[in-house]
């Protein structure tokens, strides 16, 4: 099956052939069983791929389910009020929608005493709390309110997002031409260790749009800032190297040059005058000013540095 045949069948199936080409193609197909089989194959391919993706997604969802505790059964009449009792962050109208759920002819017994109802409600709320904690692989700690739980959950998912968003995209980032490093290309110079600089450049908009090819939807809803990390010290005199380096929680791929001992430590501070994410690399601190999608690093201010050191020493 040559690329030419593939291309022709694909265009035929997409209705992209001219009328004359289509007729001659169909005539050809009629007399050629081999070609018939190929057209059949190409026609089935998209649905087969969808089925395959569906199966892998199903397995992924089964894994998520397996990591969660079973849902406590709450008979229909009680479901709404039980959820109220834990003060979950849900709008009243949504709850009322749930109240209007269909009733089956075979639904559970409807007369349940008040005290039993309260037990259900308590059980449901405790279970939901347990569930949320297990969801983020944490041990159940009593006495933490529901809002806190929801915030923690949101936070852990945000961290997970940070980890997942970047590696998928760093290939394209790494393939962009690197500027601003010519003057360091003379090799490994020891005293450059002293002036280690991390520069973050916002990439040009043409590269950004090329990278976003095929992305549809609400780009105004999600902010895409494309940044990359460029290290201009500790340069090796070996021309263009592509190295995968480990910086804080996730991989950043740097083309050309390498960063020695690149593992960093991510620190989160929530103190007066010191708030947010900081990166500790060797003896250098950087403040991470953006925690969505891409992460530019800026050197911390002197005053902040003192605070960071103070809290780290503790």
């Amino acid at each position, binding site marked *: 099956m040559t690329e030419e045949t593939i291309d022709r069948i694909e265009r035929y199936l997409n209705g992209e052939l001219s009328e004359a080409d289509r007729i001659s193609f169909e005539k050809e197909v009629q007399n050629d069983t081999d070609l018939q*089989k190929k057209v059949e194959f190409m026609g089935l391919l998209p*649905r087969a791929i969808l089925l395959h993706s569906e199966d892998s997604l199903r397995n992924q969802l089964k894994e998520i389910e397996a990591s969660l505790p079973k849902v406590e059964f709450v008979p229909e009449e009680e479901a709404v009020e039980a959820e109220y009792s834990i003060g979950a962050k849900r709008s009243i109208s949504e709850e009322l*929608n749930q109240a209007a759920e269909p009733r089956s002819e075979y639904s*559970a017994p409807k007369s349940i005493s008040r005290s039993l109802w309260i037990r259900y409600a308590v059980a449901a709320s405790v279970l939901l709390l347990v569930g949320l904690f297990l969801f983020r692989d944490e041990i159940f700690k009593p006495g933490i309110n529901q809002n806190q739980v*929801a915030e923690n959950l949101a936070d852990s998912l945000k961290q997970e997002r940070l980890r997942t968003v970047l590696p998928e995209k760093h290939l394209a980032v790494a393939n962009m031409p690197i500027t601003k490093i010519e003057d360091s290309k003379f090799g490994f110079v020891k005293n450059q260790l002293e002036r280690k600089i991390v520069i973050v450049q916002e990439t040009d908009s043409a590269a950004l749009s090329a990278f976003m090819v095929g992305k549809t939807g609400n780009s105004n809803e*999600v902010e895409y800032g494309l940044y990359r990390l460029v290290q201009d010290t500790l340069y090796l005199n070996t021309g263009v190297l592509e190295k995968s380096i480990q910086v804080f929680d996730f991989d950043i791929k740097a083309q050309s040059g390498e960063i020695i001992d690149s593992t960093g430590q991510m620190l989160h501070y929530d103190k007066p005058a010191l708030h947010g994410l900081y990166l500790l690399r060797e003896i250098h601190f950087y403040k991470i000013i953006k925690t969505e999608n891409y992460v530019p690093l800026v050197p911390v201010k002197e005053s902040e540095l003192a605070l960071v050191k103070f809290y780290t020493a503790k």
Partner: protein
Amino acid sequence: MERNISGYSDAEIVEGIKNKDSWAFKSLYSIDRNGIINFVMNNNGDHNDGEDALQEGVIGVWKNILANKYKLSEGARLKTYLNKISRNWWYNQLRIRGITFQIADDFELEDIIVDVEDSDERIKKLSKYFSLLGEKCQSILKLRFWEKKKLEEIAIIRGNTLQVIRNGSSKCIRDLFEMYNNNKP
């Protein structure tokens, strides 16, 4: 912007799902897990049935997002949307199992249509052979024949040259066709 229990807004989850991010699927899965599983358990099902309904619901939402059938602007909240697909799926199961049931007045089956599972044996076979291909082949063919991306775009996404992608894509299709044609891997 209203946020879901996972802390993400509908728009963020939809965008994440388009990007195949696992946090987004987790968020969607947890968006109304209690509600959906309990709905099934309240309607002749057990916990396992509830899980199935939720799974199929998430898969339905995912399919519709990719097919651009789900539009944020129409004001359908993701949670409600998922809930409807799951319920619809469960009603269908009850019908298959021959259990009589009553559909709630406010529920319109026609609201959301999700393609029924493919029962064509040829597709199942082809899908099985597809899973035997290497990761690179799977990724390229997915982008080309399912997401309908141009070879140029695939080259950018995969960080390869156009020539590499073109040759790779042809070879993958040939390998897959061989398996399909000869009925063996």
